[in-house]
């Protein structure tokens, strides 16, 4: 027998904790249909008033577009630079490239507030506060770890003889990269892209500091809304964000299911 027993009480308690983990976020769905003017479950009937308020509000729409395009551009940057970096570290495989790979996960380990202070100071000097390029670069560099980690994991599965064979048959380094290595790590690249995208899409603290007056991404506008007045419209936005995240996540799961190797 490979498993051990857990008593019914332990199992029941574990499922309660799992419910505590999985369910609370979905409370925003019924709350978004409330017929009250404050945050509560629908009282007498379900109402679309807050959804209508959301759909007719230009500010929320602008925020969605800002968040979307910032996430797309910074994901692209993180994917290109991160993939090249992972491949370079994999091939160079020396003590130094190992150090580079470790340094790349720093943005995941250092508390964001520390980075927010630093990048804000730098951007004040460079006059980049409230600029699109400033936010895109900040999100790109903090999105790098996700790509480097997932692509490195894919590279670890590649048979090094594949590359030797291509080189032996006369392919240049660039050709080998383009036709042999990159196609083999596509699943890793796509997973990294999804993580980097969600990272930028959800990022709040850095944008609060460097967004200036021009950039109110979706998380920042939600943050201001929660601090100001707790309007049920925020529950509508939160519902939308959960749906969108689940959509992106199922794309990742589908991708993983289609991955050829174990």
């Amino acid at each position, binding site marked *: 027998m490979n498993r051990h027993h857990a008593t019914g009480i332990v199992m029941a308690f574990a499922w309660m904790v799992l419910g505590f983990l999985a369910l609370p976020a979905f409370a925003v769905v019924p709350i978004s249909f409330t017929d009250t003017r404050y945050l509560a479950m629908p009282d007498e009937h379900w109402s679309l008033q807050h959804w209508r308020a959301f759909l007719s509000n230009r500010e929320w729409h602008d925020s969605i577009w800002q968040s979307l395009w910032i996430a797309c551009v910074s994901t692209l940057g993180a994917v290109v630079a991160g993939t090249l970096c992972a491949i370079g570290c994999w091939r160079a495989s020396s003590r130094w490239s190992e150090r580079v790979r470790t340094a790349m996960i*720093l943005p995941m380990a250092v508390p964001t507030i520390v980075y927010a202070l630093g990048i804000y100071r730098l951007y004040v000097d460079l006059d980049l506060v409230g600029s699109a390029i400033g936010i895109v670069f900040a999100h790109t560099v903090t999105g790098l770890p996700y790509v480097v980690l997932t692509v490195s994991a894919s590279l670890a599965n590649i048979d090094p003889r594949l590359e030797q064979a291509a080189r032996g048959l006369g392919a240049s380094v660039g050709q080998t990269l383009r036709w042999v290595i990159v196609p083999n790590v596509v699943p890793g690249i796509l997973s990294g892209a999804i993580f980097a995208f969600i990272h930028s899409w959800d990022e709040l603290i850095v944008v609060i500091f460097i967004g200036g007056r021009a950039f109110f991404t979706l998380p920042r506008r939600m943050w201001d809304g929660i601090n100001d007045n707790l309007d049920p419209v925020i529950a509508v936005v939160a519902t939308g964000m959960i749906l969108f995240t689940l959509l992106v996540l199922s794309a990742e799961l589908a991708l993983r299911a289609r991955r050829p190797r174990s």
Partner: protein
Amino acid sequence: MPSQSDTPTGWRPRHGVYWLIIMPALAMLVLLYLVPLADVLVTSVTDPKPGLDNFLLLFTSTSVQKTLLTTLRIAALTTFVALLLGYVVAYAMRAANSSQQRLMLFCVLLPFWISVLVRSFAWIALLSSRGPVNAGLMAWGLIDEPLPLVRNETGVLIGMVHVMLPYAVLTLYANMRGIDVRLVAAARSLGASRFQAFRMVFLPLTRPGLIGAGTLVFILSLGFYVTPALLGGGKVLMIAEYVAVQINDTLRWGLGTMLATTLMLSVLAALWALSRVLDVKRLFGA
């Protein structure tokens, strides 16, 4: 793409090429990440004047000390509760059959993916005085007045445990999966009671998992901003929010960067210590 003549067959790729493609990411990391962090460090010992005056505030300023104590207390409580609940879940996951296991893992990973901001907002809505939790308790007649569950430490603790629990479960589960259950069976067959076998055989074997999960949750809790700021309603000031207030409201850069530096160095030191006992890169999903 280079032509064939540039790279005749037999030319061994120098590592130079590989360092060339590492460069864009490395340059970005250095210029846009490490330089700003270094600037925070430098500012903490130069603003308003050079010296360690800012760091003396750690020992002399009562408001700084109050924030540090609040941070440590909430991080410790969060760690304790997350370990306790996480242990039960990981233990149950180990014992479950594989289809149950998959559903359990899904429940653990799902909140990971929903943004902390959205989850904190959901907790505010759930726990507020007119929210469903209080409404339910009053409808059942368990309480007459709404309980103050949010904008205080209770709310912060609930929200933090919710964010940290998946880390605890995953680390503990990874550790428990490596334990040979035949050891427990052997203890049972030698006459140990169920509880004795757990306490004297299984529990000691999960110590590395408990240490790893505990350290990880504790250090991640130290730097939390969004959850305590929203669920504490400005009344429960943890270090990250305190730093933001220093910069945004009072423009005390010296104090703000000093606390940020202290936070960063504590977290990195703890991670380094942890990396000596287990593979830290795994914790970040490698």
